[in-house]
């Protein structure tokens, strides 16, 4: 989504809404024989012990707990009690989770087999009927589900048997798996929805490892262990999850969150990057550094104003010393970006290199474009502390080549208005939770995109975006997105700055965290390898 990655919406360093890519028609990779999966390994040196309440802190309260009702402000916590049909792996490719298998019978028909032995928190069965009910509920306008549009190509769902569904679409829908790996794919109890939809917003009934025990708005969320978690049985680890429960406090100020960690009042925390220096020598805490699938960029208004000229866009992009920006604003904790997909994403084009820092070239281009005496451009940036820091640093760099960026620091509401009105030349941009490759390009570069409003109209890119939506073959789809990156890159459509990283701190008594495998398998490793306390005590 279009905001800077400063949004601290994850607690344990991991992403929530995953948008997987499309699967090959061959179902081999999609076959969910759990114990055959490469990540399904649990050979711990120390045996996991049950016990203790895991305490952590987030910046904002979750809001609504029905993923299809808006607003939801904390997707990480959502994953504790609602699980998705699919998760993602180390390259952000989809991995079946509540699904066992997904097969394209033809480009417009999918046969889906569900996992067996899964129950919702209220005891009702997770089966084809439940999924069908949920999807039709989402599509019903009376439900007020903001996700309804994401299921637009859906024509019908038919129950084939207890665990099998046949989905029919009105177009070839390559992004289908991605969609059901995100918000609409969180499995909700049909029985609970039927009984009382409004109550569901604060009393969710999912399939996840934890149930909601108590919710105090703007204060905390308390979750309790789910003794019937399907994954525990299916994976042969009946003691999972190991914590008795999870306590998520809402603490808006990052310094106070850190104080709580130091005081031993919480067990894990996602850090502000500047807090690393304070914690790296702390003997009671371990700090981990992880890639995150967010990109930070600057957007050009390529259809109105000076940046219609590609030379000026080039001048801006080359005037930015990205390494210095990362060193200064992210304290070194970010990866230089070449284009929009992060380096570990399967759609990242490996042939593209980050734009070089070349202020001499910038000045030359400015000269060529007729702005030898300098250029004044307008824009905005989000006014969070990090946003201000980045904006000031960039402004300074641009000033050195003679570009005066009159940037207004605005709160989200005002920034959104400026974006819609195309009232800028250069402004903040980026995307959070990049998984399915269709969402970000559509949002930013397609005429129907929710963050475009006409500021970008690159016909080659638009054609590729639309092709990518329909291409079901995995390799072909990957090539399309590589090509899309190249097109946008060559056109300097935006100035991509870096791909994010997160820092997570854990108290030393939290066990079970295998950092190397987490890096390798990411999301699916995280949810299949719950943590525990040493000796079962917090």
């Amino acid at each position, binding site marked *: 989504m279009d905001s800077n990655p400063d949004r601290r919406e994850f607690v344990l360093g991991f992403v929530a809404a995953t948008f997987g890519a499309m699967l090959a028609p061959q179902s081999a990779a999609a076959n969910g024989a759990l114990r055959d999966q490469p990540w399904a390994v649990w050979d711990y040196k120390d045996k996991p012990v049950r016990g203790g309440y895991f305490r952590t802190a987030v910046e904002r309260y979750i809001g609504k707990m029905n993923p299809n009702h808006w607003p939801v402000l904390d997707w990480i916590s959502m994953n504790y009690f609602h699980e998705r049909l699919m998760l993602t792996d180390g390259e952000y490719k989809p991995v079946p989770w509540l699904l066992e298998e997904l097969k394209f019978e033809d480009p417009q028909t999918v046969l889906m087999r569900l996992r067996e032995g899964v129950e919702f928190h209220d005891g009702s069965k997770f089966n084809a009927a439940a999924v069908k009910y949920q999807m039709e509920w989402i599509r019903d306008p009376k439900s007020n589900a903001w996700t309804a549009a994401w299921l637009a190509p859906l024509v019908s769902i038919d129950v084939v048997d207890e665990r099998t569904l046949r989905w029919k679409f009105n177009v070839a829908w390559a992004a289908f798996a991605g969609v059901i790996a995100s918000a609409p794919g969180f499995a909700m109890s049909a029985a609970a929805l039927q009984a009382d939809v409004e109550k569901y917003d604060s009393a969710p009934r999912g399939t996840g490892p934890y149930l909601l025990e108590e919710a105090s708005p703007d204060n905390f969320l308390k979750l309790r262990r789910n003794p019937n978690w399907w994954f525990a049985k299916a994976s042969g680890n009946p003691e999972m999850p190991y914590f008795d429960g999870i306590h998520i406090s809402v603490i808006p100020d990052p310094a106070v969150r850190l104080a709580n960690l130091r005081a031993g009042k919480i067990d894990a925390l996602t850090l502000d990057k500047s807090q690393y220096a304070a914690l790296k020598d702390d003997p009671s805490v371990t700090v981990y550094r992880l890639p995150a699938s967010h990109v930070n960029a600057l957007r050009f208004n390529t259809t109105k104003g000076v940046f219609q000229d590609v030379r000026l866009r080039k001048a801006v992009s080359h005037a930015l010393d990205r390494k210095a920006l990362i060193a200064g604003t992210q304290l070194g904790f970010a990866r230089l970006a070449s284009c929009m997909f992060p380096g570990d994403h399967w759609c990242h084009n490996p042939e593209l290199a980050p734009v070089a820092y070349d202020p001499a070239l910038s000045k030359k281009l400015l000269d060529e474009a007729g702005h030898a005496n300098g250029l004044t451009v307008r824009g905005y940036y989000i006014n969070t502390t990090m946003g201000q820091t980045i904006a000031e640093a960039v402004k300074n760099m641009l000033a050195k080549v003679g570009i005066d960026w009159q940037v207004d620091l605005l709160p989200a*509401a005002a920034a959104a208005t400026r974006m819609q009105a195309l009232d800028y030349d250069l402004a903040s941009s980026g995307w959070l939770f990049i998984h399915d490759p269709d969402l970000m390009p559509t949002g930013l570069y397609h005429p129907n995109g929710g963050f475009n409003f006409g500021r970008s109209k690159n016909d080659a890119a638009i054609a590729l975006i639309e092709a990518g939506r329909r291409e079901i073959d995995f390799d072909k789809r990957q090539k399309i997105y590589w090509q899309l990156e190249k097109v946008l890159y060559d056109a300097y459509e935006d100035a991509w700055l870096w791909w994010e990283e997160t820092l997570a701190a854990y108290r030393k008594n939290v066990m079970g965290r295998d950092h190397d495998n987490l890096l390798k398998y990411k999301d699916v490793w995280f949810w299949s390898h719950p943590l525990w306390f040493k000796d079962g005590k917090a």
Partner: protein
Amino acid sequence: MAMGSYICVRLLHALVILALVTMLVFVIAQLIPGDAVMAAMASSVDMNDPAVVARVRHQFGLDQSILMQFRNWLTRYLTGDWGTSIGTGQKVHAMFIQRLPVTLELFLGATAWSVMIGIPAGIISALKRNSVVDVAVSTGTMIGVSIPSFWEAIMLIYLLGVVFPILPPSGYVPFAENPLLNLKSMALPTFVLGTHSAGLLARYVRSSLLEVLGQDYIRTARAKGLSERAVITLHALKPAMIPVVTVIGLAWAHMLAGAFFVEVIFALPGLGRMSVDAIFQKDFSVVQATLIAVSVNVLVVNLLVDIVYGYLDPRVRMRQ
């Protein structure tokens, strides 16, 4: 003018003011640039379908004219439906009920601290004017007024929550659930708020008491042979307390947003935090409901202050 009709007139005034405030609030909320729905959505989930945006906007009635919105809001408000928050999705009424006890407790505690510290400090430094004690106390209260409250807050959190872990660094537990923990968590926030107004109070008390002591009738009382102590307690203290009433009254009237920083830093789910967040997200329902409630609170408190004024200084009452 008799007390009874005095109160009636004041109530009438209050109603007029309330009406004005209601309209003003609505207008101000409109003037703040930015679109509430876009902002809220941009901060929680991505939207790539303008149709969805339109649907959400319709859900909150934002696609109607301003006048219609005002009218709809007013009718619903008067019947007890304070609307739904765009920012959190909860019912505004429920949000209010949940958060009110927190803010109330915060202010009761703060007032207690400020009275306990401020009034004695002011009296002492007035009586021992220009002595070392006066300077020490004055400086102390001066620091209380001058120190930025959120800075003081975070310093205390580190000192008493991390370095010497006596108190919890942040968080709120309802009194009913765990009285001891509640008091422990509220100790620092109320102290921080209290020291600021304690400083103010002390200064006003000192200045006011000194003034009163310089009055003719005090000299008369002294001349009559009364002991200094009697002079002070019988004749000087009561009129000296008039500004105190004003200060406490003002503090109470403004209790909401005044606690904003304290609520954010100590992670207390109170009304101050709720209202400021709502302003920036242009969350109409919350802003309006809060400001109306606040206005009612202010008007009531002011009325009480004036009544107490009248009690303390009969001349004032007779003037009315």
